[in-house]
């Protein structure tokens, strides 16, 4: 994984400051923001999120992060391979409870990030993760406000807290996650110093 140089982090920070939503306390200490990023990392690198935020083209599944069976591929638009779109198995909602465990969960727009904006979360260090989500080239051209909107309301993101029968939800409550995101932004969306990758599982 290529490490991202400081200029990008700086640019991202500036963008964050400029684009802070109204009503957020711009005096929130940077230390609080950095602490909030720990929570953000916990969420983004939870299996419910990172299993599809991958560097390669084969998504993962289950808490163990095993390669998705069926040879599932990201595909040209992140929606699966031609002939095997994600929607073949994944509906726009989780299946009814009567379908039992291990049935494919669902949410609107079930997909991976596109190949152009892979937004890799898995295996990244705190610093790299932070740089990644702030980089418009990798995050789908989102500024921080758009990111906040995304993590607050996107139905596929929200699925992480309602993942269906037999699947652990993201370990941090969603409102706590959003609050942390706001704290982080309010503190200038700072990125922690570089560190080792959290996990070596990069498939």
């Amino acid at each position, binding site marked *: 994984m290529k490490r991202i140089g400081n200029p990008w982090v700086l640019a991202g920070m500036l963008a964050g400051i400029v684009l802070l939503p109204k009503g957020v306390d711009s005096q929130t200490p940077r230390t609080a923001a950095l602490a909030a990023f720990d929570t953000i990392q916990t969420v983004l690198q939870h299996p419910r999120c990172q299993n599809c935020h991958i560097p390669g083209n084969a998504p993962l599944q289950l808490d163990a992060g095993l390669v998705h069976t069926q040879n*599932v591929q990201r595909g040209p638009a992140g929606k699966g391979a*031609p*002939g*095997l779109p994600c929607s*073949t198995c994944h509906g726009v*909602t989780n299946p009814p409870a009567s*379908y039992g465990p291990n049935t494919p969960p669902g949410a609107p727009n079930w997909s991976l990030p596109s190949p152009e904006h892979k937004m890799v979360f898995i295996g990244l260090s705190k610093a790299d993760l932070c740089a990644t989500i702030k980089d418009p080239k990798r995050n789908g051209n989102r500024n921080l406000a758009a990111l906040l909107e995304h993590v607050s309301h996107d139905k596929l993101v929200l699925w992480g807290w309602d993942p269906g029968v037999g699947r652990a939800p993201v370990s941090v409550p969603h409102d706590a996650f959003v609050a942390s995101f706001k704290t982080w932004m309010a503190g200038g969306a700072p990125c922690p110093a570089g560190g080792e990758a959290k996990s070596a599982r990069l498939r």
Partner: protein
Amino acid sequence: MKLSVNGKEHDVSVSDDMPLLWVLRDVLGLTGTKFGCGMAQCGACTVLVDGQPVRSCVRPAAAVEGRAVTTIEGLSLQGDHPVQRAWAEVDVVQCGYCQSGQILAAAALLQAKPKPSDADVDAALSGNLCRCGTYQRIRSAVHRAAELMEG
């Protein structure tokens, strides 16, 4: 609920959670769509919904109301869809149980990608299990079907 299957409208009265598979098989009598696992692991229940492949065992029938469902019975009138012709030519089938799903998955692939590579075939059809092991012939038949479609 109202279902459109193979161009025919049906009005069925079933529970909201009843999977499309069981409505097709047990209510409409369309048994070409098969039950293999009940959890989208095997692909035997594959149908097309608005031309896209769907595992009907994990999709409530209610979710496809107002959309066009195509089953193996409706893929072609005479069993002569290019995929079916290729399947016959290459002598793909063995027990035959998984083949409805395989054929619909192949038809969906060729719709999305008329000249698939081997990797495309592997990516599109690895969700369909075959216990008899017809995979090698499926690969050949998909390429043959692509040729037949080209004409």
